[in-house]
């Protein structure tokens, strides 16, 4: 049977199990919207900005592990997705963005609402397509989902000219994807795995450095098992928060620029590092030449380009973490070497424990101004650590990482690689759509929240009960922190006079607004806000002078931490 491209497209989405699409219509994509109108399987959510739509698809993906989908029109609709794509690309998030395009014959003519989005998005997508013929559409849709979600995940963009949508073809969704040039390697080499275990067991001061790859590969259980069998201390990156239970005695918390003293000291003094699904980002290594000077490095990653990129590696293992960790567990579980190893490394764990004890994450409580860290602690207390937390970018993001304990993967959603202000609110909405029963909280800054505040309308329209907690310090706090520490306190362009009135703004959108201005109000205001139905915005006036500590100044080595 012949169908139009638009019908083929919508049917392919439904057949691939897509339940929701975040999007925004326009001329070039209208035929798809018409086909969606008649389709009952695929729900569409109308966002208020295409950037918001991509972040929602991204939040949906991070919270659920399923691929997020976004649909927009050509030209400005397409270019508005770029920040969302780059955000997902840097953090390896499976998202597929479909853009309308001007008719094939007009491409290149500066036609109305034409943008070369395939060219523009090439460096910030895992792969992208321009569909040239209606008969290729179903296959390309299938390939796009396959590429986005396999290997190292990432965003894929598919650009669909209008005539491809109006043209007709037989519906033919291939069962299998076959791409000659794309074969991610899932199986870790057994001999490399053996060498890795041998190296690990031969040393005495091990640390596991766990990243977002643990979450992406759903191997938190394997990581926990291996670390327990060998009593391995575990530190996680920002992207790895929740990959290992934060309350576990073996957990050191986050490492890096704003990592814990214990984690940074442990990495710096370790004699072997087991890097799992982490990419040695410069926020983590500090000065590379002084990073972990005594350590042998074992690096497991599914993407060969992550290995040996920033630091030399002693034992590289390319493969899926789940597979490699299982192989490792098999080699040590129940073996007498494991018991001996736990004994041999006990002194090292003692050393780490004493670092943790002398320099825990802390702040100076005060009766006057509300401390932002206190607010995050209260959010933790109130939600018993069971919420899904999205963050904006800046100090709010760091405090959300430091003062909330994450026990489960996919409960901390944050733009790590790109550091996109305005990510949190739409990501929280997307996460809530994926996980309707969960409490989803966006820990926000007063600057970032204004970058996608319009999505409050989306939340209200679809009754998505996200809770936003603004740590309102009246400044672009993280930038101000750098100005205070490294630019002699010249606060150039970082003051945000208290505009707008967030409570009134929430109400204008039809959401509920709450405010806390004194420390003693915080628990009650949070409780009320979280208990209220529908989307809620809680504006908490916090101490603008508060800085994020520890801090490793840019370019310094990890042991050179500024402490509270």
């Amino acid at each position, binding site marked *: 049977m012949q169908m139009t491209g638009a019908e083929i497209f919508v049917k392919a989405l439904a057949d691939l199990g897509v339940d929701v699409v975040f999007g925004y219509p326009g001329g070039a994509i209208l035929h798809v919207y018409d086909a969606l109108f008649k389709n009952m399987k695929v729900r569409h959510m109308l966002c208020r900005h295409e950037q918001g739509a991509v972040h929602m698809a991204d939040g949906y993906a991070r919270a659920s592990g399923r691929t997020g989908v976004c649909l927009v029109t050509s030209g400005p609709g397409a270019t508005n997705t770029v920040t969302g794509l780059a955000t997902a690309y840097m953090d390896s998030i499976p998202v597929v963005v479909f853009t309308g395009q001007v008719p094939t014959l007009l491409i290149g003519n500066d036609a109305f609402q034409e943008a070369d989005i*395939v*060219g523009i998005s*090439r*460096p910030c997508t*895992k*792969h992208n397509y*321009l569909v*040239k013929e209606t008969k290729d559409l179903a296959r390309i849709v299938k390939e796009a989902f396959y*590429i986005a979600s396999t290997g190292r995940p990432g965003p894929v963009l598919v650009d669909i000219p209008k005539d491809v949508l109006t043209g007709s073809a037989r519906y033919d969704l291939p069962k299998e994807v076959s*791409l*000659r*040039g*794309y074969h991610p390697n899932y199986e870790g080499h057994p001999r490399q795995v053996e060498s890795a275990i041998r190296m690990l067991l031969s040393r005495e001061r091990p640390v596991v450095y766990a990243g977002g790859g643990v979450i992406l590969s759903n191997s938190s259980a394997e990581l926990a098992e291996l670390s327990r069998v060998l009593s391995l201390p575990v530190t996680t990156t920002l992207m790895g928060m929740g990959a290992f239970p934060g309350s576990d005695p073996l957990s050191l918390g986050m490492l890096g620029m704003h990592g814990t003293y214990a984690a940074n000291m442990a990495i710096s003094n370790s004699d072997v590092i087991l890097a799992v699904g982490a990419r040695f980002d410069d926020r983590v290594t500090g000065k590379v030449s002084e990073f972990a000077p005594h350590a042998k490095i074992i690096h497991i990653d599914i*993407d*060969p*380009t992550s290995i*040996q*990129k920033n630091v*030399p590696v002693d034992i590289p293992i390319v493969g899926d973490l789940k597979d490699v960790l299982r192989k490792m567990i098999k080699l040590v579980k129940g073996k007498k070497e494991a018991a001996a190893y736990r004994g041999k490394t006990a002194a090292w764990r003692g050393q780490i424990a004493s670092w943790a004890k002398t320099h825990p994450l802390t702040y100076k409580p005060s009766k006057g101004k509300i401390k932002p860290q206190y607010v995050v602690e209260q959010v933790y207390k109130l939600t018993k650590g069971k919420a899904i937390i999205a963050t904006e970018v800046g100090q709010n993001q760091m405090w959300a990482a430091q003062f909330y304990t994450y026990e489960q993967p996919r409960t901390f959603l944050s733009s790590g690689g790109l550091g996109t202000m305005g990510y949190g609110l739409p990501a929280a909405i997307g996460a809530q759509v994926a996980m309707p029963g969960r409490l989803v909280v966006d820990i926000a800054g007063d600057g970032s929240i204004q970058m996608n505040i319009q999505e409050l309308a989306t939340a209200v329209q679809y009754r998505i009960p996200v809770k936003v907690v603004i740590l309102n310090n009246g400044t672009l706090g993280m930038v101000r922190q750098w100005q205070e520490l490294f630019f002699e306190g010249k606060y150039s362009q970082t003051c945000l006079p208290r505009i707008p009135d967030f409570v009134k703004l929430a109400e204008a959108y039809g959401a509920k607004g709450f405010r806390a201005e004194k420390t003693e109000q915080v628990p009650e205001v949070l409780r009320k806000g979280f208990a209220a139905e529908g989307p809620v915005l809680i504006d908490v006036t916090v101490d603008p002078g508060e800085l994020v500590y520890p801090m490793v100044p840019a370019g310094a080595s990890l042991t050179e931490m500024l402490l509270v």
Partner: protein
Amino acid sequence: MRHTISVLVENEFGVLSRVSGLFSGRGFNIESLCVAETMDPKVSRMTLVTSGNDQIVEQILKQLNKLVPVLKVIDFTGVDTVDRELVLVKVNADGEGKPEVLRLVDIFRARIVDVAPRCYTIEMTGGEGKVQAFLQMLRPLGIREIVRTGKIAIARGM
């Protein structure tokens, strides 16, 4: 160190910009790049010359392999290859220089492909050393224009 890398790619829309964009986006050097169809019209071969330390070249090879339409990447370093480049060069050919041009064309087994009143256009192919030497010898005679294809290479034997 310089590396000659051969990349087999799907012969499809945009593949050249994926490869060149990778080099510019990541700050890798690209000294020359040649692209054309292979025996299989669905596949093209790119031969590119790049340089960098071992770690950079390792990244280049891995990043190329990671592109979806890239089918195969071969680093010719340490491989016995035949490599060639085609050069078209316009050189002054008047007065005393003329016989010298003719002599060089003969010695380097080049060919004159176009003749104008005061200049010859010469076609020459050869490996890197030969091309360099030829151009160096012509330079004092007055080179007006050079067009080079960039290097292509094929492994010896089999």
